[in-house]
């Protein structure tokens, strides 16, 4: 994330400079009715503010899709690892052995919970604690913290999707309003109400709304999808934690 911010910043600066460079061309092209009506032409003729909006929307769309790709990979991998860990866990393998094999690299959610709980357990016994009364409570706490960390990892950046999904149309609409405003100003300046004068400005303005929608629609769809997936995986983690905590508490009672 920290590496990404500079790249994003450079992207924005680059876009802004191109927008500045083209702003004069855009304003002069507004007056001329014979406009380039291709997409790139619409962009180049747009007002500076509209250009900024468009560039922001493009960047946010890129960012949203990066998050979508990332999250899809993450959720898929998490689900597979959970399946594999549960398979190993319920295979009747000794918990001590499992802990020893996993202790070096607890890089997955369920394993991290298991390792955290086992570490607390072993630390209590190997430390030669007198009372086991607080152990159960401590283990639950440790597991809760680990679950919270893992869920936070799953849900990270989903807020970006939510923000783009809700604010993207408004940003695009702002660009549209601004573009229509400037095109009406152009009409007032040229005193010509011919549709050929108005049309390019309105087309370019509507282009901004289109980009806002293009960015916002996938963001909203994937936000809902990822939120439900994250909550389902969090529930699965909590279920595992409860089960494991029950096993450990039985062990404590047996030993105590």
């Amino acid at each position, binding site marked *: 994330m920290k590496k990404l911010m500079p790249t994003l910043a450079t992207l924005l600066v680059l876009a802004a400079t191109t927008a500045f460079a083209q702003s004069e061309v855009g304003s002069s092209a507004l007056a001329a009715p014979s406009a380039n009506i*291709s997409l790139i032409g619409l962009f180049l003729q747009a007002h500076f503010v509209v250009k900024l909006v468009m560039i922001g929307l493009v960047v946010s769309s890129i960012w949203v899709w990066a998050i979508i790709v990332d999250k899809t990979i993450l959720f898929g991998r998490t689900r597979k690892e959970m399946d594999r860990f549960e398979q190993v866990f319920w295979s009747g393998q000794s918990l001590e052995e499992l802990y020893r094999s996993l202790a070096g690299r607890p890089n997955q959610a369920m394993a991290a919970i298991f390792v955290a709980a086992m570490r607390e357990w072993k630390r209590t016994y190997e430390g030669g604690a007198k009372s086991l009364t607080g152990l159960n409570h401590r283990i639950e706490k440790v597991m809760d913290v680990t679950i919270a960390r893992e869920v936070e990892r799953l849900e990270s950046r989903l807020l970006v999707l939510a923000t783009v999904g809700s604010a993207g149309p408004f940003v695009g609409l702002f660009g549209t309003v601004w573009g229509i405003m400037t095109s009406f100003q152009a009409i007032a300046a040229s005193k010509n109400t011919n549709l050929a004068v108005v049309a390019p400005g309105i087309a370019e303005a509507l282009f901004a709304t289109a980009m806002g929608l293009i960015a916002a629609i996938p963001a909203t769809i994937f936000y809902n999808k990822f939120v439900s997936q994250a909550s389902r995986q969090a529930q699965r983690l909590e279920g595992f934690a409860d089960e494991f905590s029950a096993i450990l508490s039985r062990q404590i009672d047996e030993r105590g």
Partner: protein
Amino acid sequence: MRAGLIASSLAHAGVVVLALVSFATPSPFDTPQPEPLNVDVITASEFTQMTKGNERGKKTETKKVVAEKVDAPKPVEDPNLKVTEKEEIKASAPPPPPPPPTPAPPRPEEPKPTPPTPKVEEPKPAPTPPKADKPPEPKVEQKADEGLKADPKKDQQKQEAQTQPPPPPPQRRPTVIPPKPQPATANAQSQEKFDTDRIAALLDKRTPQRNAAADQQVSQTASLGAPRGEAQTLTMSDIAALQARIQSCWNPPAGASDAGDLRAVISVRFKPDGSLQVQPQVTGVTPASSPYAPAFADSATRAIIRCAPYTFLPANKYDSWKDIEMGFSLDQMLGRVR
């Protein structure tokens, strides 16, 4: 995260390129060009002189008609043509054909004249004393022949003169007879030349030298003109005359405070002779709130009535001035509204 960002950037670049290709030039609407309206700039006089006709009519010069007018026969050297010429002359005096057998001139002629004379004379006098009448007639004819003038007498006598060379036989024969043999020979020639294939040519009594002459004729096709042009509207000069006339009779009310703003519209209906059909009607006065408005409208009405018979208006354009709305204002003194 980096993988996601790279994938996303690549995908966006691909989409942008695709959009640039597919939306590069939106196909323009196929709008049919409206049919252009031809506008002719014409002067007022051209408008008033516009005749009614088909707008798309061709300004055709109508084909000259060749008149079947026979020029005075001229002597032609071709013998064949001469024959027809003489036939014409023969045709002009059809009665003689019976005499063609005139090898013996004196005898047949005498009997003939006698039958015609009784026929002609019978209607005239009931008593029928032909012999008694005969003696005087020849004398007169002789005189006429001698004078070579058209006989001043009646047609019957003319016919007699042509057909009757009888009573004065001795003197006239020498002169009259020589021409007659010629027609006989001519007849013989024409009969010899009679050819069934040339009946039409033979029947054509017109001389071949007839001249083409232009004849007047009525144009059958609609000539060039505007569909609504009637050349019946009032010309500017007519309107100006009407304005001047009414203006001379008009005494606008003096002292109106807002005189410049007052306007009255008065509808007038004329009779065909230029006199008023009904009392002029005030159709509108503006501003109606002005206290001088009624007086102003009344003055205008009075002006129209006072000048009443507008005999100078062209009667043939009565349709265009039988119902006129006239606007009165002190600004323009008088302006025709419609």
